C-alpha cells in the first residue's frame, strides 16, 4: 500500500494508532453516528484483534479463554471496511504531511488521527529488572508467560499490591504457584480502599493462600540467566522463579512527544478529546484531561463517546470527568469502591462493620451527596451507590438508612 492512496469514494482518512479498547470503542461510537464518513485504518502493536484487557485476570485465573475475551473479530473490521494492521506498531507521525508510518513500512496519509496508544507498565528500574522471568501484566503475551511459568516453576513474586497485582497474584495462585505479593505501601489497593477494607481484603486473600510483604522496598532482582530471587532494601530476600511487576503504568506518549504534540504526564486533550493539533484526537490511558490521567474503563468509555461524536462531526458533547468505580475480580472476594472514598475537608463518613461476616461498608458524604463508597463483603448495592454518586442525588432524606441498602431505602421512600 502506498501513502495517500485515495479511497474510492474520496472519503477522508481516519488513522487510528492503537487497537485497544479505547481506540476501538471510539471507532464504534463514530460508526454509530457516521458509518460512512471515514476511510478507517487501524494500527495495533499486538498481533491480535481487539480484546478486553480487563478480562486478562480471569484469563490468567483460568476462568476465561482467549476467545472469551476477544472484542472485535477480523470479520468485524471487514464488515465495517476498516483496514487493520495488527502486530505492526506505528513508528512515527509526520504532522506537517499528515502521514503515519509503521514498522512494516506502511505510510498512511490521514485527515484525522486518533491516538489510543494506552499505557506501558512501569518496570521498577532496580538491578536485574531485565532478567528473563521478570514481566508485567499487560497483555495476552504476559498471561502466556505466566501460564508457562506456572507449569514449570513454583515461586512467583508480584511486585505491587494494587488492583492489577492482586488479580495477577490470585491468577498465579489459581495456577498452582506459591505467590508472595510485595507492596511498598502499608496497605493494599490504597488507591481504591481505605485501611479497614484493605485489612479485610488482606485477611481474606491470606486465607486463600497468598502471602504479603507490606512496606517492602525492592532493592534488586537476583539471578544469573533467569530470575531466582527478589532482594529487599533491608537485605532479606525471597525466592522467585517469576516476578510480575504491577507497580503502576505510565501513559504511552513517546510517539506523541516525537511528533511534537503538547504532553505533560500524558497527551494533553481538551474537553472534546482534541490534542493541541486540531486534526489529532487522543483517548484512553494515554491522555491527560484537566490534570487527570485514566486507568479504569468507565471514564474511557465516556471519552470514546465524546471523541466519536466529534470525529463524526456531531461535535456538541463535552467530556466531563466523573467518579469511577472499581470491582476486584478475585473469586470469593467481593470488593467495590467508587468515587472519592478517602474524603476531604468537609466530607463525612458512614461506616458499617461486621468483621465476623467479612462485611465492611463505607460511604463518604459531602453536603447532601454521596461522593465515594467502599464496599467489602457485600457489594450488591455498589452500582446503586455509584448511580447516586454520578447523578448527584440528594440523599439527605435517606441518610440514616443508606448503608443498609437500596431495597430498604426503596421501602422507606
Amino acid at each position: 500500500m502506498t501513502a495517500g492512496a485515495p479511497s474510492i469514494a474520496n472519503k477522508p482518512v481516519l488513522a487510528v494508532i492503537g487497537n485497544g479498547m479505547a481506540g476501538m470503542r471510539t471507532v464504534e461510537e463514530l460508526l454509530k453516528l457516521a458509518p460512512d464518513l471515514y476511510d478507517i485504518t487501524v494500527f495495533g502493536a499486538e498481533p491480535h484483534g481487539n480484546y478486553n484487557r480487563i478480562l486478562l485476570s480471569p484469563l490468567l485465573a483460568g476462568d476465561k479463554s482467549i476467545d472469551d475475551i476477544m472484542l472485535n473479530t477480523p470479520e468485524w473490521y471487514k464488515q465495517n471496511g476498516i483496514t487493520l494492521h495488527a502486530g505492526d506498531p506505528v513508528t512515527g507521525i509526520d504532522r506537517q504531511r499528515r502521514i503515519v508510518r509503521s514498522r512494516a513500512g506502511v505510510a498512511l496519509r490521514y485527515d484525522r488521527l486518533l491516538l489510543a496508544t494506552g499505557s506501558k507498565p512501569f518496570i521498577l528500574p532496580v538491578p536485574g529488572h531485565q532478567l528473563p522471568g521478570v514481566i508485567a501484566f499487560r497483555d495476552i503475551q504476559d498471561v502466556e508467560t505466566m501460564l508457562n511459568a506456572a507449569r514449570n516453576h513454583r515461586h512467583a513474586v508480584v511486585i505491587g499490591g494494587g488492583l492489577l497485582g492482586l488479580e495477577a497474584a490470585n491468577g498465579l495462585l489459581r495456577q498452582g504457584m506459591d505467590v508472595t505479593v510485595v507492596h511498598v505501601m502499608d496497605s493494599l489497593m490504597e488507591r481504591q480502599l481505605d485501611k479497614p477494607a484493605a485489612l479485610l481484603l488482606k485477611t481474606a486473600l491470606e486465607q486463600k493462600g497468598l502471602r504479603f510483604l507490606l512496606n517492602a522496598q525492592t532493592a534488586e532482582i537476583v539471578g544469573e540467566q533467569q530470575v531466582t530471587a527478589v532482594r529487599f532494601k533491608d537485605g532479606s530476600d525471597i525466592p522467585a522463579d517469576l516476578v510480575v511487576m504491577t507497580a503502576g503504568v505510565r501513559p504511552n506518549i513517546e510517539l506523541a512527544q516525537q511528533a511534537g504534540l503538547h504532553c505533560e504526564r500524558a497527551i494533553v486533550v481538551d474537553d472534546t478529546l482534541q490534542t493541541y493539533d486540531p486534526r489529532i484526537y487522543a483517548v484512553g490511558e494515554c491522555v491527560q484531561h484537566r490534570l487527570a490521567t485514566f486507568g479504569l474503563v468507565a471514564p474511557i468509555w465516556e471519552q470514546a463517546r465524546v471523541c466519536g461524536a466529534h470525529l463524526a462531526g456531531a461535535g456538541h458533547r463535552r467530556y466531563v470527568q466523573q467518579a469511577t468505580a472499581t470491582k476486584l475480580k478475585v473469586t470469593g472476594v467481593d470488593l467495590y469502591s467508587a468515587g472519592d472514598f478517602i474524603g476531604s475537608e468537609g466530607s463525612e463518613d458512614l461506616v458499617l462493620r461486621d468483621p465476623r461476616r467479612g462485611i465492611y461498608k463505607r460511604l463518604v458524604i459531602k453536603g447532601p451527596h454521596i461522593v465515594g463508597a467502599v464496599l467489602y463483603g457485600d457489594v450488591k448495592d455498589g452500582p446503586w451507590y455509584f448511580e447516586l454518586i454520578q447523578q448527584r442525588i440528594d440523599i439527605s432524606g435517606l441518610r440514616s438508612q443508606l448503608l443498609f441498602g437500596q431495597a430498604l431505602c426503596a421501602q422507606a421512600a
Partner: protein
Amino acid sequence: MKSAPSFPLLPAEKLSYKPGSTLTTCPYCGVGCGVRATLHSDGQVDIAGDESHASNYGRLCVKGSALGETVDLDGRLLYPKMRVEADATQPLQRVSWDAALDQVAHGFRSIIEQHGPDSVALYVSGQLLTEDYYIANKLMKGYIGSANIDTNSRLCMSSAVAGHKRAFGADLVPVCYEDLELADLVVLVGSNTAWCHPILFQRIARIKETRPQMKLVVIDPRRTATCELADLHLPLKAGSDVWLFNGLLSFLARNNAIDNNFVDTSTNGMAAALDVAESGCVDHGAVAKACKLDPHDLLTFYEWFAAHERTVTAFSQGVNQSSSGTDKVNSIINCHLLTGRIGRPGMGPFSITGQPNAMGGREVGGLANMLAAHMELENPQHRQTVQDFWQAPRMAERPGLKAVDLFHAIESGRVKAVWIIATNPVVSLPDADQVQRALAKCELVVVSDIIEKTDTNAFAHVLLPALSWGEKDGTVTSSERRISRQRAFLPTPGEARADWQILCQVAQRMGFKGFDFAAVHQVFDEHARLSAYRNGDAFGQRRTFNLSGLSGLDQKQFDAMAPVQWPLTTLASGDKRGTPRLFADRRFAHPDGKARFIATVPRGPQYATDSDYPLSLNTGRVRDQWHTMTRTGKSPKLADHVPESFVDMHPQDALLHGVREGMLARISSRWGEMVARVQHSGGIARDSIFVPIHWNGQSASDARVGALVNPAVDPVSGEPEFKHTPVRVEEFRVAWYGFVLSRSRPMLDDVTHWTRIQGRRFNRYELAGRSPISEHSTWAAALLGVDTADADWLEYQDVSAGIYRAVHVVDDRIDACVFLSPRPDLPSRAWLASLFGKEKLDDADRIGLLLGQPIEKGVDTGPTVCSCFGIGRNTICDAVRKQGLTNVAQVTACLKAGGNCGSCVPEIKKLLSEILVEEGA
C-alpha cells in the same frame, strides 16, 4: 458486739414446689381481686382470675395477670443482714436471726429506756396483711406505749378516713362495687380508674354498654384514659374540688334536690355547710371561673347530679392527696347527705383505695391517730377497752407522729429508732431527700423487706427478710370492706419470715407478753375478738366494725374462709352474712346516730405557683406499674407500656420552657429535683405537668419525683399534697442519647442519665450523657464489657452525625447492643428486644441488627398497647387502617387486643379516633 458468725456461701436456692391451684388475693390496688395461682413443679406460676370472687368475677388487670413474672427470687432479701462494723461504708453482713432480732429488740429497748417511748417509731404499709398490721399496732400502742406508728396509707387515703370520721363518726365506706353498676350516674373524682383500678373500670364499662343511658362524669385536671368512656369530662383546676362541690351543694339546694326527710332525721349541720357553700359561689359561672371550667359543662354536671337519684361519687388520690383533702372528701359527702343518697343501692360517696390492704390497716388502727378495731385513741373509754382486752402494760395516750412529721422528728433527733416495714419512704414520701437526711442521721434504722436493694434499705442498720406475696398467709380488706384471704402457695425462700412473726419475736425479746401466737389464724382471731369486745349499746359503744362472725376460727376454718364484707351478721341458721352497704338504717356512728355536714371553706393548695416555680406538678400512677416497682419492675410484660419516667406537659408550656418532646428535662421545686423525658399526651392543661411516682434510685439515675413533692399536708388528715407542687422545667442538656439492651449489666459510670427496664432475657437501659464521646468504639466496648479484638462485634457509625451503633453477638445469639445518637431519634427497641428470645440469629435478622429493625417492613409491632397479648401500636393501627375497623370489639375480634383485662381499651379507642380523624382529613 461479737464478731459475726461465719455462714456457708449462699446455697443455690433449691426449693421444692408443691404443684396445685390456690385461691388468693391480688397484692396491688384496693379493688382486691381474687386470683387463682397455679404452681408447677418447676416453680412457674400461672395466674388467672378467681371466677368466684365478687370483686372481679374472674377478671384480672394486666398487673395482676403478670404476677407470675414477679415471684422469682432475683434481688430478694433472703437472710437477715446487719451493719456489723460501725463503718457505714461497709456493706451489711449476713447474720443469724437471733443476732438480728436481739439487735433490734436491744436497740429499741435501750433507746426507750433512755429517751422514752416516743423516741422510737414504726413506719409500716398498706401492703402488710391485716395480721402483720395488727401485731405492729399492738406492740407500739399497747406495749411500747407510743402511737408513733404510721403507714404509707397516710399518703393515699387518710383524707378519706378523716372525712368519713367527720361525716359518719367512724371510718366507714357506705357502698359496694355493685353500686357502681346500679347507678345511673357515676362521678369519678380525681381517679384515673381505667389505669389504677382497671377491674372496677371494666365493671363500669360493661354496664355502660348494656345501659348506654347511664352517665359517667370524670372530674380530673388531666384528660386520662378514664375519660375515653366519659360522657362528660370536667378538667378542673388542680385543687379546686371544694369550690366545685360547694357549688354543687348550693345548686342542689337551690333546685329543690334536698331530701328534707333524710336531712332532718339523720343529719346535723346542713345550714352551716350551705352557708359556706353559698357564700363562695354566687352561681355556677363563678364556680366555673374558680375551677377554670366551661360554665356550660359545669351546669350540665350539676343538672345531671340533681336529676339522678342513683348517683355514686367515687373518689381517689386526686381528692385525698391535697392540703385540703379532708374538706374535699366532706364536700363530696355533703352533696350525698343533702340528697339523702346514701345507704341505698346504686348511690353513695365511695373512696376507692390504692393499696391492697389500706382498709385492713385502718381496721386494726394502723395510723398514728387511731387505736384498733376502729376505736379512737383519744377516747378514754376506747383506750380502756383495748387495754383491758390486750392486758397491755402501757397504752399510748395521744396521737403519734404522722408520716411527714415522723421523718422530721427523726431528722431533728426526737425519734432515734425507726423500724420500716414493707414500704420505701425514700421514694414515696414527699420531700424525699429530707427522708434520706433523716435516715442518715437516725441512730437505729431497721427495715423489713422482701427486696435487698431499695433506696430505703441503703440506710438500714438491720435488714430483716420478709415473706412475699404467695409465701405469706393472712387477710386483706378491699375498698368495699371485703375481707379476703391471701394464701401461701410458694415455699419459704431462704430464711424469710412473716412480718407478724418477726414483730412478735422482737416483742418477746423486749420482754412483752401477749405475742406468743403459734399461727396466723390466731392473730386474726384476736383481731376479730377485739372488734366484738364490749361492742354494742350495752357497753355504750356501738361500733360498726364488728367481726364477731369471724371469731373463733381454727386453722382449717381460717384457711377455708370465703371473701366476706364486714360487718357480719349471723343468720338464724348460723350462717354468716356480709353487709354490702352501710347506713341502710340511716344510723351513723356519731353518738347521736346522725351524720354530719361539714362546712368546707374552699382554699387553694398550700404552696402557690410563682415566677420561679410557675408550673403545678401533679403525680400519679401509670397503667402497668405499681408503687416503687420492687415487684412490677420485675415483669418484662409490664415494662413495655411505659418504660421510663416522663414529664407530661402541654406543648405550649414545653415551648415556653425550652424543652422538646422526647428530650430530657430537669424538673425542680424548692425541695428537690429530678430528670425525665418530655412527653405530650395531649391530656394535660397549660401550667401543669404530670410525673409518675414509680421510678426510683434503683430503676433510674434521677427520676425520684418524691424529692420534688412539697411537704405540705392536710391539717386534719396529715395527708401530703402530692397533686400540687410548684415546679419549674428546664432543658437537661446532654451530648447524646442512647439505649442498651444486654443480657448482663453495663458499666454506667460515664452515663449521666439512665433508666433500667426489665426485658425478657435482657436488661434495657435508656441512656443519656453529658460528656461527648470521642472514641465511640472503645467507649461502647467498655460500656458493654466486650473485648472487641476477637468478638463478633458489629458496628455502624455516622461519624459527623454522632450516630453510633454496635451489636455484640455470642454464639450466633444477640448478647448486647448499644445505639447512640445526639438526638433522641433512636430506632424502636421492640424488634431488637425480640431477638433476645432467639437461640440463633438468622441471616435476615443479622442484616437488620444495626438498623434496629427488620429489613422487611411490617415486623416491627411498635410500643406495646395490650400487655396481655403483647399487641403493639403498629399492629393495631395497621389492622384498623387495612381492615377498616371502627370499634374496639372489632379490634379485639381481629387481634385479641383488649380482650383480656381490658386495661388498654381506652388507648385502643383513642387510636381508633385518631385514625378516624386522620382518614377524615
